[in-house]
């Protein structure tokens, strides 16, 4: 089933066009990677999906259907609740771990201490951070290591129970071990969540994703099953890109 | 529910912002309203070019040319003294000292800026004025010079902080390249840092000019408050001290009363112009 259907999406800032006529369907409970050279519009694509683009002063035309309904017909808050995002640079709030994770649930009206505690426990476990942190949840999140911070941000995105999780190069600032941690976690998530991950690391795309999209200069060049695309790219540009990096 | 809260908050914020900005307009309008009555009696041109201020004479003559000159003169003397000291200190502060020392100096400058002008006036009167009278046997130590020296101390913090901020940036930007060429630090400062900071220095001067011209208490206590043509070692009068001194004794609604508002109005217009200029200088630094 396609959870997101995107038709003729064009995005720009003022007169400057970033994305041109992009159409793509995202399968539910699968991991979709978006690859392409820097500046091709990958990140812009992600921020459009949860309407963050408007906050940054951009605009878009075309249609984005979330569960077969236009996302503009939802309230902006609801869309962002359902489509969570994790940015490249870990950005924990400068509060305690506990407060980081209860920040959004409290906003959505959960006041009960037990319920909040269980959300914190659950999301920390999912992000694989439980064992490292559960003894001192009042510790400032700023004291965590980079990898831990990023996992905390993922946990924080999960606290509002999204259906889709967008990740914008979540591992680019991390070392190999932390990267492996996060990849493993994402593979586990795909049972419950739809994941779209932007990455410049082709082997990462290959390792974890079911589908891969290749973008170049604001256009979608090729989209298909990951294996198929890496073994047998249809477009010449895709082939060059994949080989260029490998070779 | 949440949307309503959001709406209310943004409306309140906008209204409060609008109110804050309207205050300036209110200030201008109210000061103008009170001065307008005066300008109907005394043409504005005559008011600012005439040389006599005699509110008690009959008919009373009210014009403030010497007072305007006095206001400018005192500030210019202040800037003349403060500029070399301020720029020099700013260079040391931004180019030479370690982080720790810098923090202390910044703290001291903040405190200097925080000393109330009455206290400056107090010290000025007891130390500076007396010094002139005793050492140089002036008939009166109260003078343009005393006011200028006091102003110079008071504006030092403004000049230093405006200059050092910009100088630090320039210094950080070019230090590596310049030292790689083997030239001395002071050569680099003279050839790069100072020329590159000239706009900041200008901004500091304009800011200081505004501060100096608007200064009331300190100046009032050391200039003697005589509305005559200002000379360096003689008494003079400035607009702020004229208002502070005479407002209490002017009968409400009299021409004298409105004349004081009119002088305030002139001062305000001059300072608004200075600040508009300052705004554009600062903007050109940021770009």
């Amino acid at each position, binding site marked *: 089933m396609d959870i997101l259907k995107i038709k003729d999406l064009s995005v720009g800032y003022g007169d400057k066009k970033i994305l041109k006529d992009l159409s793509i369907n995202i399968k539910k409970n699968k991991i979709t990677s978006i690859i392409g050279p820097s500046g091709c519009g990958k990140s812009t694509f992600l921020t459009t999906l949860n309407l963050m683009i408007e906050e940054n002063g951009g605009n878009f035309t075309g249609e984005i259907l979330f569960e077969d309904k236009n996302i503009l017909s939802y309230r902006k808050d609801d869309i962002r609740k359902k489509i969570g995002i994790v940015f490249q640079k870990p950005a924990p709030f400068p509060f305690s771990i506990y407060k980081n994770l209860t920040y959004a649930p409290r906003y959505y009206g959960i006041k009960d201490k037990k319920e909040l505690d269980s959300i914190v426990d659950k999301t920390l476990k999912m992000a694989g951070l439980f064992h490292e942190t559960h003894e001192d949840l009042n510790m400032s999140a700023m004291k965590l290591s980079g990898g831990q911070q990023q996992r905390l941000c993922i946990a924080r995105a999960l606290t509002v129970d999204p259906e889709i999780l967008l990740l914008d190069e979540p591992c680019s600032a991390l070392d190999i071990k932390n990267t492996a941690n996060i990849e493993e976690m994402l593979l586990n998530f795909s049972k419950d969540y739809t994941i779209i991950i932007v990455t410049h690391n082709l082997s990462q795309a290959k390792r974890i994703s079911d589908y891969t999209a290749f973008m170049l200069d604001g256009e979608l060049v090729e989209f298909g099953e990951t294996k198929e695309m890496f073994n047998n790219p249809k477009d010449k540009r895709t082939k060059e890109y994949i080989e260029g990096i490998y070779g | 529910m949440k949307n309503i809260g959001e709406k209310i908050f943004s409306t309140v*914020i906008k209204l409060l912002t609008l109110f804050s900005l309207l205050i300036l307009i209110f200030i201008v309008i109210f000061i103008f309203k009170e001065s307008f009555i005066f300008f109907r009696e005394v043409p504005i041109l005559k008011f600012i070019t005439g040389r006599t201020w005699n509110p008690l004479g009959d008919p009373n003559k009210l014009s403030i040319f010497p007072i305007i000159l006095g206001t400018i003169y005192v500030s210019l003397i202040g800037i003349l003294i403060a500029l070399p000291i301020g720029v020099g200190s700013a260079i040391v502060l931004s180019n030479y000292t370690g982080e720790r020392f810098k923090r202390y100096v910044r703290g001291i400058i903040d405190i200097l800026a925080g000393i109330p002008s009455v206290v400056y006036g107090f010290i000025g009167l007891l130390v500076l004025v007396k010094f002139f009278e005793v050492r140089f046997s002036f008939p009166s130590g109260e003078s343009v010079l005393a006011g200028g020296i006091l102003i110079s101390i008071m504006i030092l913090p403004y000049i230093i902080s405006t200059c050092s901020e910009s100088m630090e940036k320039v210094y950080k930007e070019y230090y590596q390249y310049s030292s790689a060429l083997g030239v001395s630090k002071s050569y680099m400062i003279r050839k790069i840092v100072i020329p590159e900071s000239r706009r900041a220095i200008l901004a500091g001067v304009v800011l200081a000019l505004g501060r100096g011209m608007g200064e009331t208490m300190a100046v009032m206590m050391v200039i003697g408050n005589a509305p005559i043509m200002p000379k360096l070692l003689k008494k003079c009068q400035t607009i702020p001290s004229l208002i502070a001194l005479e407002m209490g004794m002017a009968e409400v609604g009299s021409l004298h009363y409105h004349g004081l508002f009119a002088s305030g109005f002139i001062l305000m217009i001059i300072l608004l112009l200075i600040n508009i200029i300052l705004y554009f200088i600062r903007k050109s630094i940021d770009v």
Partner: protein
Amino acid sequence: MSEKIKDSIFKIWLTMSTLVLFIIVVYIFGYIFKNGFDSINLEFIFGNPKGMPLGSEGGVFPAIIGSLLLMVIACIFASILAISTAIYTVFYCNVKKIENIVHLIIQCMAGVPSIVLGLFGYTLLVMYLKLGRSLLSGGITLGIMIFPYIQVRVEKILREVDKSIIESSYALGVSKVYTIFKLILPLCKSDIISTITLAGGFAMGAAAPIVLTAAVIFAPVPRSLSSPVMALPFHLYILTGEGISLEKSYGTALILIVILLIINFISMLLGMKRKEHN
């Protein structure tokens, strides 16, 4: 002239100017502390002014309280407006032109001389709104004086908050109001309070705006917002200007300076707290 000689002259200039700066600061504080110290005793701090002319004996207690109250009112009035304006320009204003106009107006407000603010407070508050020479009139006038100072700094503080944190908050579907109140303001709290405290110090030291709007030569500790008040800077001016008592002048100046130093110190501590946290 060779570059070497120029270098040395240059260095002499720098050394001299820094030296002058230090001498001025040390001299001012030394002078006030040395001369004021003997005038200070419990009666001076906690007593009413007495004697003929008034102030030649006794203490300055009503002036201390008056000054502190004026400061508090000024801070409340100014910070409500200043923080709102700062929040507006940072989070709600998305037209660059409007932002520029706001900045220009605030710059101009900062430039209005304090005596003109006094005139304004006098016509609008004292005469037109009939608030009289009072704590409230003086407090508001001082508030207008420190408003631009607080606004500029609070805006800077808000802008320095890491953009990615704010984005992360929006990305969770959380509203702007919630983000401002639960994330940004708690984060900037100590910096903002530090700024307000410092501004309060300026308000407390200013005499020109209250000469016409609030301060009187003698008043007891004010009982309501509409009472006229004594204030330290004005008291100092009267004592010195009228030549009432040199000894009491020194004492008043010292108390004023000490209170301001304490305020400065509190403000500095608050500023440091934030830095430690990060």
